[in-house]
């Protein structure tokens, strides 16, 4: 079996908490990141998506991000926030194309996909945030506790959808507190502290 190609890499990336992060992500893999609250997990994702200024280098397909247009980088290395906010009428209106199939897989019926966003529950909004990101076909998904607001069966459905979404040209960096979930989805598990990432 050949070793999967390197897809995404962070080198000496200094995030807002002061931690220095090195990370190599192969295509098709899921890297789970844990750590105490306040250890800077969200800061790590923001630095990777180039939303906060951070010293260091990040590569996608061998190309350093300074050579990317910022919006192209963020479209390829896409952060899915823990609490999605909405500016158009419905979740579907925020998506690049029709997402009813994927929504159904997440037990989000078509009428909820097209309902006014202010009528959605926290859990429905969390799934909506994932759908609008997937509709834009990113290479690397940065997930900030995507199932924290979901009950167990729906969380499993989210895991299923994301694992089938994976391909050799895609990868996921996944912040999760749920040990069972990490067990189910992770190829690599990391702990973040104020120095950096540690393999566990």
């Amino acid at each position, binding site marked *: 079996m050949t070793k999967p190609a390197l897809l995404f890499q962070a080198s000496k990336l200094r995030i807002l908490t002061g931690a220095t992060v090195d990370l190599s992500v192969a295509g098709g893999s899921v890297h789970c990141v844990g750590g105490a609250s306040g250890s800077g997990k969200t800061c790590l994702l923001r630095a990777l998506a180039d939303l*906060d200024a951070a010293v260091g280098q990040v590569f996608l397909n061998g190309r350093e991000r300074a050579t990317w247009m910022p*919006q192209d980088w963020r479209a390829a290395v896409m952060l899915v926030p823990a609490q999605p*906010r909405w500016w158009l009428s419905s979740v579907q209106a925020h998506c690049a194309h029709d997402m009813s199939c994927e929504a159904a897989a997440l037990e989000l019926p078509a009428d909820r996909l097209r309902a006014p966003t202010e009528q959605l529950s926290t859990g429905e909004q969390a799934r909506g945030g994932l759908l609008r990101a997937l509709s834009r076909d990113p290479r690397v998904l940065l997930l900030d506790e995507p199932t924290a607001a979901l009950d167990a069966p729906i969380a499993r459905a989210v895991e299923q959808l994301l694992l089938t979404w994976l391909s050799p040209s895609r990868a996921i960096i996944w912040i999760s507190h749920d040990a069972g979930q990490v067990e189910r989805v992770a190829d690599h598990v990391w702990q973040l502290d104020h120095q950096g990432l540690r393999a566990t």
Partner: protein
Amino acid sequence: MNQPLALLSPFDLALAACMVLALAGLSWRMQLGVQRQLLIAAARTVIQLGLVGLVLKALFEDLHPVFLLPVSLLMLLAAGREVIARQSQRVERGFVIGTGAMFVSSFSITLFALLVVVQPEPWFQPQYAIPLLGMMLGNTMTGITVGMERLTTGLRRDKDIVEQRLMLGEAPAQALEQDMRGAARAGMIPIINAMAAAGIVSLPGMMTGQILAGSPPMAAVSYQILIMFMVTAGTGFGTLLALRLTARRLFDGRGRLRLERLRGRPGARLA
């Protein structure tokens, strides 16, 4: 002029001032707390307009264009200061942004009006140049003030939305589009309303003044139309330019939202 102008004596103005004094007295009785501001503003009106009268008198007697320069510059800087004083959030380099946008739009449109439309002899005759520039600056100032305030407060409120739009791969201009549109509208609506209501709901102040001072009504009307168009264009272009510059200041070279360049100012004066 058909009739001799009814000149106002200082006594006449003192009588008019009594009405403001009476209002201040009522405000004091009702504990509204605006009597101080009211009296200070009234005093400022007398002092500032008196000084302007003296300056205009001196300018009208000496036509040398060199004197126009310091006067118009002073007017510009005073307007720029007002824009900044009325922001509840201070943008880094906000003074340069507001004043620069005002300079570009007010001065170019005033020059256009003087050189192409009105064409007084000589074109820089202060009797035309100063009042036209004053009208331009006054209105553009309001548009820019309202627009910038709306953009910065909106951006603070919608920070998460703007950042989440960036996360989805939108460029800053696109991520900001809703706040930008709201701010541009807020800056331009007052002047659009003024055009729509002109003559029906309100007689514009300049025209009223001209008619009271004895001008034929149709002459006053045509000048008022000219002023309205100039002011609308100046306010619109000035506001859009100031908003663009403000937005650019609030993002960095990598399209990141940099709200730390915006500082709250609890002591800001209300417009």
